[in-house]
């Protein structure tokens, strides 16, 4: 069986892919990192993670349509698979259960949805 655990960085990338939808390609994702997370990440690093996630089966990808920008070159658009969703859910649940057992925040309830 393939490795199905998610690293922190992988999880973030996966989430951003989900958020970006049709615009989920390497450059945009690295831009999101900069704007949303104030974190500078090279495109190569993102691409490498995307590649890894695809190998794990959490993402699929297809080349998009050529556009006039970027010299008519196509983009590779990524999309979360069912396995990807499940992995995100598991990751969230595990963390939530941990948060709930964390005494300092014991009174809080998180409502996600």
């Amino acid at each position: 069986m393939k490795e199905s655990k998610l690293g922190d960085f992988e999880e973030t990338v996966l989430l951003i892919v989900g958020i970006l939808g049709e615009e989920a390609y390497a450059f945009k994702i690295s831009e999101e990192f900069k704007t949303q997370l104030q974190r500078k990440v090279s495109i190569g690093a993102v691409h490498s993670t995307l590649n890894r996630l695809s190998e794990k089966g959490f993402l699929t990808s297809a080349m998009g349509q050529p556009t006039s920008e970027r010299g008519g070159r196509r983009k590779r658009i990524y999309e979360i698979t069912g396995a990807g969703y499940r992995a995100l859910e598991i990751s969230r649940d595990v963390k939530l259960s941990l948060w709930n057992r964390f005494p300092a925040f014991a009174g809080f309830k998180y409502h996600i949805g």
Partner: protein
Amino acid sequence: MDQKPPKLATHLLYFFLKHELREEVSGDLEEQFLHVLKEHSKARAVLNYWFQVINYMRPFALKHIRSTPMFFIMFRHNIIISLRTVFKNKTFSLINIGGLALGMTVSIFIGLWIFDEYSFNKHHQHYDRLVQVYRKHITPSSISVGSAVPGALGLELTESYPHLFEDVTMTFYRPNNQLITYNERTFNETGYFFQEDAPHLFTLNMLAGTRNALENPSNIILSESMGRKLFGTEDPMGKTVRVNTRVDLIVQGIYEDLPDNSTLGGAQYFLPLSLVYNKENPYVWDNYNVKMFALLKEGVSVSNASAAIKDVINNIQDESDRKRDLLLLPMKDWHLNSTFEDGIQVTSRRIQFIRLYTTIGIFILLIACINFMNLNTAQFQKRGKEVGVRKAMGSMRGEVAGQFLMESFMYALGALMISLIIVYALLPYFSALSGKEILGQWANPWFWLCCIGFCGMVALMAGGYPAVFLSSYSPINALKGKLRQGRANTRFRQGLVVFQFTISIVLIISTLTIDKQIQYAKDRPTGYEKEGLVTLIARSQSFADNAELLRSELIASGVVEEMGMSNYPLTNTLGSNGGFRTENTEEVPVYFNTIFVSPEYGKATKWDLADGRDFNREFGDEKNAIIISESAAEAFGLENPVGQQILSKNAFNDQSSFEVVGVVKDMIKGSPFDEPVPLILFPTRYTGFYSYVFVRLNPEVAVGTAISEMERIFKEVNPGHPFEYYFAEDQFMSKFRAEEQVGGLATLFSILAIIISCLGLFGLSAFMATQRVKEIGIRKVMGASITSLWALLSKDFGVLVLIACLISVPIGAYAMNSWLQDYEYRISLDWTVYGMSVLLSLFVAFATVSYHSIKASITNPVQSLRTE
């Protein structure tokens, strides 16, 4: 404005990026580039683009190894195969690499030694401009060159030639050890009397005080190590030390120790020359007793300055029959090129040594390379099938050759690493053996460059032949096993073995000859008895005043049989005079060693009186009596010298005519390899100043007891005078140091040479034995005996070694004869040396080869015949 990302970065990206990723990645990166460009400067965007490209060098994005050029795969593959071969034949690889490592070790050592010789004095800041003044003494009969010049010359050069010399400094001609005392601590060390400018000229690195310290005649400067020895943890500056128990000087400077490979190396202190020469005792023209160094002005060439001062002395002292030309020797020549013969610079002994060792180094390396080559060729031949398969799979010839070259390069590299470790570990021992401090050049890039370059050369030499040879096989023949080695190939290999052994045997002959020659000179009758003779050094006039007392006290104590004195030691031939003649002859053109001795000198040294009588104090002063040596009698042409008159141009004991009262056998005071110097001894009572005291110990008393008893009496008679003693035997033996060094190194080299040669032979015989395993099996089945098989297998090599003997004996004889020509007292070469060398090498060679041939002959034929 250019909106395109930098081309070079894009090229780089395309170079390593997987082809299928190119479109998306380049698109992304360009978008990023434009994005940055919108908000920031172009430079920032370009920089960012580069950053992004470099960040794409990740495993997932790189082109697969499979798609890189062939070369890299083959390279990796070659390394793997080479390593496998190394480990598959462990013994073989060990012999191969070990032999080469030994050879490399020797050459690295020799290289370091030569480097050290050539870097002599190089550390001096004024290396290019420092010169020493030499004097060429020209008389009608001879030309001699020496470094002794008159002190007044220094003043003249400073005053009249300021356009040539920036600075001139003088030192006392003969550096003597001085006793340096501080409180209770006394050391007998070498140092120099120098004029005040010397520290500037030789750019002493002052750790305390200034370079001007010698301007004051009451100052002394010490080396760092000397300071530590004398003062321990105290600060030496400003302290007073006593020199030779007479003069008190103040330490006004500490300099960093001079390196050993320096002309002044080992100088523990500098004293002001003005202690010796001053207003009361000025510099004069007619006393040749200083050495002179000068610093040329920038831009003045040595030859020009040399020519300009050539006639300075001749202009002042005009003598018709003799001239004293001056010349300058640049610092680069001081160490290696300061030997003159008939006024012409000739190859010095040091250069000869350098050449000798270079030759030996090259030869040993050659032997090792030949081994390597031989063993590799033999080894590679087993791999015909491999070549066949490679070629059948489509290997080009170059690739097969590359494989073999690669392999031999790896062997060479392995050997280099081993030898570097050995060199590192053995460097201190080698320094001791070669008699000087040799430094590893670990930080020198040239050293590493040489090592690696050398490795490549060896690999090419050793791997080149098999590479070319084996890669030429046609795959069909190779696979069919039709790889008969050509006759030429075998001959070639045999030739190499002969060559190796020739060199080894020549080295063995040299070693034996050198040993024999040294032993011969050691056993030479010296004309006096070395055993039980002790020399004491007298350093003050008070000593001479108490000498009679010392003698009677020593004899009374019973530990000493006799005590004699002289103005020169037994170990040199100083005190040289000419101008003697007999009644009926002209002046004899011979310089005699003339020394003054006390009447008991003969009894103390136990010289060998051949005729006549010894000096005797009962005969009073005997001012006219002399004793001559046999060679002196011969020089005078006297058959019965006793009673004959000898006349002298110069006065000795205020006399100029003497009667020979005795003849002694020649005393070997100078080099034990030279003809004895004719000797004339003049008697004196204990009035003059004698520096050397000879004490004959009572053989009944243990040496240790005798020395301590002597010291007690000595201190009693001469309070405050240091008790220094030397055994005559040790002093005599120290004359062999240079020869013993050569002998030691020659022994080492020849042992190494023979070991390396035998390693090669060992490997080769192993190879032959395995090749002929079937043949031996069949022979055994047919009834061959072990002895005959052993003879069969060993014979081939025996013949080769025999041929080597035949070649090497004449070479060795020629070389050693010319070496012996340097010695007047020498052995004549006879057949024992050659015979022993030949027997020794034959024995070693046979022993080596026999291991495998016997092993092969005693194998059960069932095993060898069933191998397939």
